[in-house]
């Protein structure tokens, strides 16, 4: 009986298996086959040879990538931006969630939440248009204001130094509404008896927030931050590409791994180096997400990804 177990089960679950088929085929085709395609990183790509027929060239692609000096620059930028995003966005999200929870008016709470969440709904292309409206040297609102005040206009699109701050602000602008809703949900789930007890003991509002609300948020904060750390080597391509584009003047402070891979592939058509850079990112990302998951798992087994 046991020898026929597999076929027996396959027959028994045939409808369920058939229902899974589209999904399995999809991920086979668009995720697992490309995974096998990482061999490209070790090959000299030729159009005729394709992904699997091109000749091997060992670590040449990686050597080229690391010798170009870009490897360190894009890795550092990706990690530093993500660290800045994690810190700034989470602090703002928690603050906004606490404010939303503490204000008395329900109507106000809904209006504020609606406005904070609005930027989440637009594409990065539209954010790029908004940025152009604000930052353009000739017509930008910021420069219009500066000129109106009799000050010198600033050439934002040609000054790399402004961008780290600008990108952190833009990232927060788009993400804080989303995150604050998650934190607000966590705060609303806190046992109200704690607040009542604190009230009776004469705690002031500041004590309530620092002694009850924030400690009760720790699990949520730790999980969200750890998971974000797991993705620290994945840059938000849509954001960087629509804000900076192919403006080489800004690359020193804005180029991330994802934009570098994209440019090497599409603009320079350097398939060898872009797949080496992509593979490097996949491996780094895989390791960090495993570490982050390990950390989550040791903190709270139920919240771990796997």
């Amino acid at each position, binding site marked *: 009986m046991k020898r026929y177990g597999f076929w027996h089960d396959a027959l028994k*679950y045939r*409808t*369920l298996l058939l*229902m*899974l088929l589209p*999904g399995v085929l999809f991920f086979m*085709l668009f995720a697992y*086959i*490309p*995974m096998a*395609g*990482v061999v490209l990183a070790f090959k000299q790509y030729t*159009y005729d040879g394709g*992904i699997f027929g091109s000749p091997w060239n060992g670590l040449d692609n990686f050597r080229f990538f690391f010798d170009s000096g870009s490897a360190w620059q894009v890795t550092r930028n990706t990690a530093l931006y993500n660290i800045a995003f994690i810190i700034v966005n989470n602090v703002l999200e928690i*603050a906004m969630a*606490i*404010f939303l*929870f*503490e*204000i008395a008016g329900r109507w106000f709470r809904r209006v*504020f939440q609606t*406005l*904070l*969440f*609005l930027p989440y*709904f*637009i*594409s*990065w*292309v*539209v954010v790029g*248009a*908004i940025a*152009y*409206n*604000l930052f*353009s040297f*000739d*017509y930008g*609102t910021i420069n*219009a204001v500066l000129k109106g005040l009799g000050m010198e206009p600033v050439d934002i699109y040609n000054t790399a130094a402004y961008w780290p701050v600008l990108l952190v602000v833009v990232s927060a602008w788009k993400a804080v509404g989303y995150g604050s*809703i998650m934190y607000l*949900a*966590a705060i*609303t789930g806190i046992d*109200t008896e704690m607040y*009542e007890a604190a*009230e009776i003991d004469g705690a*002031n*509002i*500041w004590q309530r927030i620092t002694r009850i609300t924030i400690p009760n948020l720790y699990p949520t904060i730790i999980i969200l931050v750890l998971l974000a750390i797991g993705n620290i080597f994945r840059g938000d391509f849509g954001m960087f590409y629509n804000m900076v*584009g192919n403006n080489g003047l800004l690359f020193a402070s804005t180029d991330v791994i*994802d934009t570098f*891979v994209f440019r090497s*592939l599409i603009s320079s058509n350097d398939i060898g180096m*872009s*797949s080496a850079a*992509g593979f490097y990112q*996949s491996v780094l*990302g895989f390791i960090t997400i495993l570490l982050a998951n390990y950390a989550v798992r040791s903190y709270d087994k139920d919240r771990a990804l796997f």
Partner: protein
Amino acid sequence: MSTQRTTRAGAGQTAGSAGRGRADKRLFQTIAYLLLSIVSLFCLIPFVLVLSASLTKESSIIENGYQLIPTLISTEAYSLLFKYPEQMLKAYGVTIGVTALGTAFGLFLTSMTAYVLARKDFKWRNGFSFFFFFTTLFSGGLVPWYLLIVNYLHLKDTFLILVLPLLFNVFYILVMKSFMSGIPEAIAESAKIDGAGDFLIYSRLIIPLSKPVLATIGLFIALGYWNDWYNAMLFISNDNLMPLQYYLYKMLGNMDGMRRAMIASGAVVNLQIPSESLKMAMTIVAIGPILFAYPFIQRFFVQGLTIGAVKG
């Protein structure tokens, strides 16, 4: 779950208002209102800026730059967009088609996959769950994926490639799976005794019971399609297949090309194109439907985030 949350929120309010009149609380609330107002305005003003700019006379922009309140109001940008709307309508058509088809198929396939993974009697559900989940941990990267689509599947410049990449999303499958796991098994059991097959149970019983999560995930999928420009940038060079966001992207980056195309198509006879206000008008046209639908659909997204947050 939602009733529980409301009672808790209600209780939170009572706890909060017990100390009404206390100075520290009043001060804190004042600060909260103030900061929330500032941040909310910060979120809103960019949209107002774009709207004003789209309604400003081009000469005024050239002279004074974009402004919060237009000094010289003009609808010339919109007139031009709607005078020769062919390309814009085409882009709208592509986006609407992609969004409708993608959302319908995506929702059907996501829910069907999620249902199988939620079936506790399905022996291999953990194995298959991991098969899907692993793709979020490791990927082959952009290059093999791109080459596969362009050189092997030959999907460049097809309608299909605008739909396919966003059809499945592992996170949506998992959210739906966790929702469906909460549906009492007795319902499916009794239907099975009555002789219903697995697909029938899914389509006739589980789908109607999953309406809240279907609405939420459906809107997330639809928003993803509506806002997608990335796949078009990678794979579309045929103007007839350009979706709205990519059309806007090209217009922002390449006003000269747009100008030449307009002149060539006879849309304008001379070089007098209000290019600065036109960019902003096109932005408004691209986000219009979202801004219009936003007040009505927003709560579904909040719902979805809350499901996700609870799940972790």
